[in-house]
């Protein structure tokens, strides 16, 4: 620690910090335009100049290291004069078009000029003329408002790892632009909009919608992935107009991805449900709440009065709904229906993670730590692009890499993580288990582990035996990477002082399975580490919460029917209550699910919009969206955060928990949870979080197996992978996000494209053993040959027509053939 004096106040700071950092961390404000703590100091704007005792000239405090005993003055007449002059220079070029600039009111430059004065400078020069660059879908760039502070350029390249913008040209004519002045093509995270100190970079979807000072800003939690970032929503006249991140706010520290920033407008999609609907003959007809609840009550009571009545009723909960909603669903099922037949789509994702980690470590909980990558020696990623599925967690992986961690990525597709990796092992799709086993084999053969400890763990001899089949030569044959690569990765991993393994498991990705978790666990145990080295995040905003609330078949006294029983086995149940889920679009093997749902006596769908599943229902109940109700979400870290009712419900829609409460009353059971507070208290009493630590270790050797083998008829493997612009299916209702990506595009390698006569951007028919769909094709060198890649987000693209689930947890990679359409 060093001590310096700023404005007469003694402050302490760590060695290596700049004067500006020392001041800011001690609550002393120094104005600045080009400083952002996420990027390397730039010293470009010169607004943060300060006087340092004993130095003749002023120094930029953002780029001068604080020294022991330094005496700094930040607000003397000399400093103020210098700042005024700097601003005067900026205004030579910067137009004073504040009346038509969306940034006015929250513009750093405007604030400073207001404070320091002199908008009409002494210098007369031609102003830069550049009309706004509106070519990009979401971000608008007005170059003449740019003061070249370079925050966007640096943040995009250094922090986001994208580098979509650069300083183009030299001298007076320098502009910030994408290469060749083309449309911005980037991750569309919109971070540059937040940090731009002027109105040069603006949110196109918010343009001319409202002045910032007329917005009411409220913080809530993002409804998409499980990072659980805090969104600051701007609301005017009861409508959400924009979303932004505020520095240092929430688990993400103010970082947002494009989904959180632009995707909130899914709640304004046209097919939001406004009233209940009841099926009369073939048609769904609008009804009142009383009618709908009475109808459900009658039908459900009738079904329950049959023999095994309660056993024939099931429910599906939702990661999109709050903890309170899910808890109420569980109460409804257990107290009113008397059944434990409950599950959610996480049966194909997070539930499997929990199951595997329970087997291996005896864990009753699994959370990740978003900051876990920071400071680790080695980060190993298996067939996942965390910067797509969990963008803010992904940022921490990139940060760790920048700070010196070795990033090893085993993946078949080129992703942002592979681009930033130290080693990219391009394994064939779905061969992660073989890769992990191969690494273990190398570690065991070379004795890179503590044999004494490991051999004392249950299952070690079985593991050692199972690894016989994974010699580097064999693994090369399966995965397609060289044995040197494998040995290199194994050595790096084993010799590291600290490490994490990270990947995702979700219903929308099909190259990983429960075996991947087991293999990864084996590797971690072999290296003498525990479950904290496995960072496998839950999929969506409240996946973790829904699971904790007991939306799973094994939460009650008896083992209830699971997702597969309820959706893939006709006749297993007679009535199904689906809350906030769209199995027809989300889960694999659409035709089978439709068949099962059609065979039901009663299908109740409670959702915010008319989904494909809702179209099959006997009764549809309109639910409030995430911004229209109070409640809590629990993120992948296990942190429970409030979401707030910010706007009025759409039509007659009600929060999910209220619908269930009302239905219970209609059926004659008083739930005793009339209010949200009552419900929260009950949750606190009932749901006890169990500590995520355990000393149990067991090896569970797994063998590599794959899904369908490509053959002459179906020569390509079908890989489903998430894309950055969407999360689950609800985001596809966002018009703003759809400006970037509005349909499932099937990516294939140039060689495959040639082989099947398909050209870039043309339409193709994709046929699997289960069905066929028409998609637009993209020829891409990011994907290997022999496989096609497609995102499963878009209900209208019908990817679930092609796929099938793996009921026992193995890999369910389909094979397909493609024809030019």
């Amino acid at each position, binding site marked *: 620690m060093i001590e310096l004096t700023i404005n007469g106040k003694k402050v302490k700071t760590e060695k290596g910090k700049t004067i500006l950092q020392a001041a800011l961390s001690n609550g002393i404000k120094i104005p600045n335009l080009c400083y952002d703590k996420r990027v390397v100091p730039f010293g470009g704007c010169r607004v943060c100049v300060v006087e340092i005792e004993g130095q003749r000239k002023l120094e930029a405090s953002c780029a001068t290291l604080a020294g022991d005993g330094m005496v700094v003055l930040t607000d003397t007449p000399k400093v103020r004069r210098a700042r005024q002059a700097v601003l005067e220079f900026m205004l030579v070029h910067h137009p004073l078009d504040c009346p038509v600039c969306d940034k006015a009111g929250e513009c750093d430059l405007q604030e400073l000029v207001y404070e320091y004065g002199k908008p009409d400078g002494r210098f007369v020069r031609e102003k830069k003329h550049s009309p706004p660059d509106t070519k990009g879908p979401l971000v608008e760039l007005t170059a003449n408002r740019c003061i070249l502070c370079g925050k966007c350029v640096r943040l995009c390249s250094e922090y986001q790892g994208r580098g*979509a*913008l650069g300083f183009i040209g*030299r001298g007076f004519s320098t502009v910030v632009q*994408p*290469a060749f002045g083309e449309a911005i093509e980037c991750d569309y995270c919109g971070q540059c909009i937040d940090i731009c100190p002027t109105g040069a970079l603006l949110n196109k979807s918010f343009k001319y919608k409202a002045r910032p000072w007329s917005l009411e800003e409220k913080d809530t939690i993002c409804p998409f992935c499980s990072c659980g970032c805090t969104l600051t929503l701007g609301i005017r006249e009861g409508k959400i107009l924009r979303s932004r991140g505020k520095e240092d706010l929430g688990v993400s520290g103010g970082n947002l991805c494009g989904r959180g920033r632009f995707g909130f407008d899914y709640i304004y999609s046209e097919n939001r449900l406004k009233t209940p609907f009841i099926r009369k003959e073939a048609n769904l007809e609008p009804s009142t709440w009383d009618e709908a609840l009475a109808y459900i009550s009658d039908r459900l009571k009738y079904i329950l009065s049959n023999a095994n009545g309660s056993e024939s009723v099931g429910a599906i909960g939702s990661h999109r709904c709050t903890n309170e909603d899910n808890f109420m669903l569980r109460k409804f099922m257990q107290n009113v229906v008397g059944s434990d037949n409950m599950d959610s789509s996480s049966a194909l994702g997070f539930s499997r993670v929990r199951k595997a980690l329970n087997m291996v470590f005896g864990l009753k909980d699994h959370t990740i730590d978003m900051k876990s990558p920071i400071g680790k020696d080695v980060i190993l990623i298996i067939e996942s692009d965390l910067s797509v599925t969990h963008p803010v967690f992904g940022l921490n992986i990139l940060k760790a890499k920048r700070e010196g961690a070795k990033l090893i990525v085993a993946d078949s597709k080129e992703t942002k993580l592979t681009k930033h990796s130290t080693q990219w092992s391009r394994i064939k799709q779905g061969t992660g288990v073989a890769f992990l086993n191969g690494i273990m084999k190398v570690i065991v053969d070379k004795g890179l582990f503590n044999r004494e400890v490991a051999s004392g763990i249950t299952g070690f001899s079985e593991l050692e035996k199972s690894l016989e089949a994974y010699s580097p030569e064999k693994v090369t044959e399966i995965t397609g990477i060289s044995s040197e690569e494998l040995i290199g990765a194994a050595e790096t991993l084993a010799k590291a002082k600290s490490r994490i393994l990270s990947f995702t498991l979700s219903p929308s990705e099909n190259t990983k399975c429960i075996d991947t978790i087991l293999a990864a666990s084996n590797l971690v145990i072999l290296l003498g580490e525990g479950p904290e080295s496995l960072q496998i995040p839950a999929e969506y905003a409240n996946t973790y919460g829904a699971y904790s609330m007991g939306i799973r078949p094994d939460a009650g006294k008896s083992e209830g029917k699971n997702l597969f029983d309820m959706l893939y086995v006709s006749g297993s149940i007679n009535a199904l209550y689906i809350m906030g889920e769209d199995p027809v679009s989300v889960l694999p093997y659409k035709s089978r699910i439709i068949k099962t749902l059609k065979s039901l006596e009663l299908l109740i769908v409670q959702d915010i919009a008319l989904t494909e599943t809702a179209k099959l229902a006997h009764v549809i109940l309109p639910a409030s969206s995430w911004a229209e109700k109070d409640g809590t979400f629990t993120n992948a870290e296990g942190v429970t955060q409030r979401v707030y009712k910010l706007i009025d419900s759409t039509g007659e829609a009600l929060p999910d928990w209220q619908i269930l409460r009302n239905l219970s009353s209609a059926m004659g059971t008083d739930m005793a949870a009339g209010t949200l507070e009552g419900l929260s208290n009950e949750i606190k009493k009932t749901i006890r979080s169990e500590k995520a630590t355990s000393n149990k270790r067991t090896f569970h050797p797994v063998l590599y197996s794959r899904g369908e083998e490509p053959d002459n008829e179906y020569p390509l493997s079908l890989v489903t992978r998430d894309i950055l612009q969407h999360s689950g299916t609800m985001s596809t209702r966002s018009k703003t996000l759809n400006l970037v990506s509005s349909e499932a595009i099937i990516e294939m390698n140039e060689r495959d494209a040639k082989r099947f006569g398909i050209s870039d951007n043309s339409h193709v028919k994709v046929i699997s053993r289960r069905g066929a769909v028409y998609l637009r094709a993209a020829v891409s060198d990011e994907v290997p040959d022999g496989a096609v890649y497609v995102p499963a987000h878009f209900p209208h693209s019908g990817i679930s027509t092609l796929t099938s689930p793996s009921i026992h947890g193995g890999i369910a990679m389909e094979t397909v053939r493609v024809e030019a359409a």
Partner: protein
Amino acid sequence: MRVEDLDVNEMIGDVGKIICEHDRKKGVLIHAFQKIQQDYGYLPGEVLMTLSKKLSLPLAEIYSVASFYKQFHFSPRGKKVVRVCMGTACHVRGAKNVLNALEDEFGIKQGETTDDLAMTLETVGCVGCCGLAPVATINEDVVGDIGKKKLELLVKAIKEEEK
């Protein structure tokens, strides 16, 4: 040079041992641009794209570096690059007339290239032979004392060697 064959470590030499990977890649950019321009006459977009992939540096970063230097060009250049000197001495001796005459003759403005890629017309600050003003250069050759007659010769020289 094929961009695919570019060897960063070889190009950067011993300095590479003491700088980080990112700086190493950034450090070779100008050498790479010069080699590309030698082969193509300019920096074609798709070649820069390949370079971006090869070095895994963002295209914007690469373009940013290239656009800083006047020596790099992003559109095809003519076989003959004609530079009309606009320096002080040439200016007073009527450089503007020379430029206008060439612009009229070839139907292009300064900074442009003829459609058949035969000639690129540029202006330059000073060539360093003010005694010969007004001066123009055709590639490496200097033509001085451009009067009416010399102008005709100049035009002829430009046209002649097109073939």
